[in-house]
């Protein structure tokens, strides 16, 4: 049977189909096996982020669309929203917690800022437990960089990142 005959072509198709089928099965099995782990880490990351933003809270309620409520003994003590800032390299994904027009906390979930410059926005100094840059926002009701006549110290040589984060927080406060 040559490859050009109908039978030969069918044989080729059959072999390819079998390979694809086996590959699909292998992928499905791996997916079912790893999915719980993947979901768990995602949830854990989010939960960690949320409790960094509102440290006092003991529970969080997912309102959908990137919005959350921080709860303490069943009462709402703050609202948290997912916000994207225009960073130097890409969008910076962050959580901002607000209560009564005041900032409870800011946490950066994902960023692609330059190491040593913009990436220092998540830098934690020795003997401290949260990034010094983000801690500045806590308790404020209006924010702007000191260079722009405000109250926030910029990260040295990373004005664009500092300004992007500060502007995103200011925008969220105005809402």
């Amino acid at each position: 049977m040559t490859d050009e005959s109908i039978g030969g072509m069918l044989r080729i198709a059959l072999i390819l189909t079998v390979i694809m089928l086996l590959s699909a099965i292998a992928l499905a099995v791996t997916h079912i096996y790893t999915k719980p782990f993947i979901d768990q880490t995602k949830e854990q990351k989010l939960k960690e982020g949320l409790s960094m933003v509102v440290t006092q809270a003991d529970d969080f309620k997912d309102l959908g669309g990137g919005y959350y409520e921080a709860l303490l003994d069943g009462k709402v003590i703050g609202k948290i929203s997912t916000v994207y800032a225009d960073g130097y390299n890409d969008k910076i994904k962050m959580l901002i917690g607000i209560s009564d027009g005041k900032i409870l906390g800011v946490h950066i979930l994902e960023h692609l800022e330059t190491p040593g410059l913009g990436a220092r926005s998540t830098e934690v100094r020795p003997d401290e437990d949260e990034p010094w840059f983000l801690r500045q926002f806590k308790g404020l009701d209006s924010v702007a960089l000191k260079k722009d006549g405000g109250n926030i110290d910029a990260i040295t040589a990373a004005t664009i990142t500092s300004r992007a984060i500060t502007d995103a927080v200011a925008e969220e406060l105005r809402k």
Partner: protein
Amino acid sequence: MQSQNELQRLVCSSSPHVRSGITIKKIMFAVVFSLLPAAGYGVYLFGMHALLLILSSIGMAVLTEFGLQKIFRMKVTASDGSAIITGLLLAMIIPPSAPLYVPIIGSFFAIAIVKLAFGGLGSNIFNPALAARAFLVASFPVAMTIWARPHVDGITGATPLGMLSESGMSAVLDHFKTKIAMYSAMFFGNTSGSLGETSALLLLVGGLFLIAIRVISWRIPAMFIGSVYLCSFLFGKDPLMAVLSGGVFLGAFFMATDYVSSPTTTIGQIIFGLGCGMLTVLIRELASYPEGVMFAILLMNCAVPLIDRFTKPKTLGQK
């Protein structure tokens, strides 16, 4: 085979065979001489640390060239003066408050990577001092963006272009009080900036001297400065300030005119100068860096082989 190879090396061009007394060494020392006023003013302005920066930069450049050429058993050209120019130029384009390791690492990079790795003097694609500065900006972003104030130890300020891009023209005018004071500070060089770039006057004197003794041609600097003036005007900026500030004069007279990394033809040099000026303004206005001279010249360096190819003069009778 051997004899044929040797014959091929001895290609004789057609007459006339002009000989002149100009050697690489003489040209290089003319350039160093013309840079001295601006460099000396930098030392006067920013203090002894500036002198240390210049000496360590030159020392490391010469040492690197000598050392590597010895190690790899190449012809030692460390005494032709080109390494001295690279070291001096590099020191002149770094902040006067930079720690000493900045020019030392920079000079090593300029000579070892940008110059010798590409084949030594005559084969480098990029201007070594500028390419080294680009590497330093990427590597030491903090040290490379802190600017000392003239005559004041330990206090930092912003360069005029830094102020302009951070807070706008009104802040620059606030700083200098009047427009005339601003122009004269920039022209004479009493502002924050890289070690040897602040005084437009002294760079102009050095540059005109080089043009007068025919070491460089007027085309690249004139086109460079002219297009910075024109493009800044088109962007609605103060064109005179755009020309006097930052590294325009230093870049136009001493870096864009580097024989090796600039075009050889007349039209090519005009295109090159115009391109440098336009890119400088585009980077200043649209990119995140306040100053664009360095990247403008480096980008145009990449385009030199192309420019040379398209502007090659036709030989007689060629279609």
